[in-house]
């Protein structure tokens, strides 16, 4: 049984040390270490984010977080492991971005294209013409937002995704990053 080992460094904020956890840590380091390219991508993340903001040369307003995501709905009792038999709600994948109780929000329906890329169809509230920037780690492109607030984007790479609303003369409004 585990017990205090004199001089042991507390792990996880508790003093009761169990060397078996250290062995597990070493095991995972051997059999499943974080790949170098994953660390490199993480290293680059802050410059990626900063570079886009510099390019835009506009102020960024408050970030819109994820309000709802139907992919995460109905997860009661879900152990969070692949193969545990999650049932999809059957409807389309809908993600809503918003900020607190603010009225600005972006609704996006995410659909999968045959090539494995994604199609986004959405609505911005309040309405008004502008541009929506679709950001992936590898690049970004813009699509128009019409006077009713509607937009559509195709060929979006699967993976990390973030959107930015651009309206003339206003602050750009980014959403949080999500994995699609």
């Amino acid at each position, binding site marked *: *049984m*585990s017990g205090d080992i004199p001089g042991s*460094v507390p*792990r*996880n*904020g*508790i003093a009761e040390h*169990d*060397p*078996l*956890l250290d*062995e*597990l*840590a070493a*095991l*995972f380091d*051997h*059999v*499943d*270490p*974080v*790949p170098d*390219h*994953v*660390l490199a*991508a*993480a*290293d680059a*993340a*802050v*410059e*990626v*984010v*900063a570079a886009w903001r510099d390019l835009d040369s506009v102020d960024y307003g408050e*970030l819109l977080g994820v309000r709802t995501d139907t*992919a*995460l709905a109905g*997860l009661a009792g*879900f*152990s*969070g*492991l*692949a*193969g*545990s038999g*999650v049932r*999809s709600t059957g409807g389309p*994948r809908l993600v809503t971005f918003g900020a607190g109780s603010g009225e600005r929000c972006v609704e996006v329906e*995410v659909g999968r294209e045959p090539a494995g890329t994604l199609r986004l169809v959405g609505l911005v509230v309040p309405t008004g013409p502008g541009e929506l920037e679709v950001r992936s*780690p590898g690049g970004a492109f813009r699509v128009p937002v019409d006077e009713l607030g509607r937009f559509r984007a195709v060929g979006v790479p*699967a*993976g*990390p995704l*973030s959107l930015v609303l651009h309206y003339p003369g206003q602050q750009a409004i*980014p959403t*949080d*990053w*999500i*994995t*699609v």
Partner: protein
Amino acid sequence: MDRAPQLADLVMRAGARDQQAWRQLVSRFGSLVWAVARSHRLDHADAADVSQTTWLRLAENLGTLRDPARLPGWLATTARRESLRVLAGRRREAPAELPDDIDHDRSSTPEAFVLTADRDARLWRAFEQLSDRCQQILRLLAASPELSYADVGQALDIPVGSIGPTRGRCLQALRRMLVPDDFTGSEFSGPGSAGRFVR
């Protein structure tokens, strides 16, 4: 060792576009984020996406983190949410498999190499027989000594009070499975042999 002021300082500097501070955060917590994604049985590609989304999200939110000292918990919770998003959205699965050859270039002698490889293989096989919940908790606890029980509870959506007892039960179950059986040819002979595995 109280690393909280260090962490708050790193977060502040990273927010001011100090690339070196950011790299320190990545090198300190990169394997934790990876461990969370992999503990949800995501394959390499999906785990890489979860990792990248998590770090991009941190980059966007550096200025608005409520408590920089709780960064490990923030990263674990974010990585879990993204892992669930991927699971529910894509429903792909890759069972965690034992690699055919485990890299052991740290060992100095051939005998140690063989023993270590075998020990790793047995530890892995025993670990895989644990319940899903045990595997998740132990992987998370092993991945970052800086995660508090509060962080783990928040990251895995389980009550913080249950983590200590669950940790103890899971480690005990793992120990029981590591007791030698037919490997050395000798039968499991009782409680005395369990102590051999505490180095």
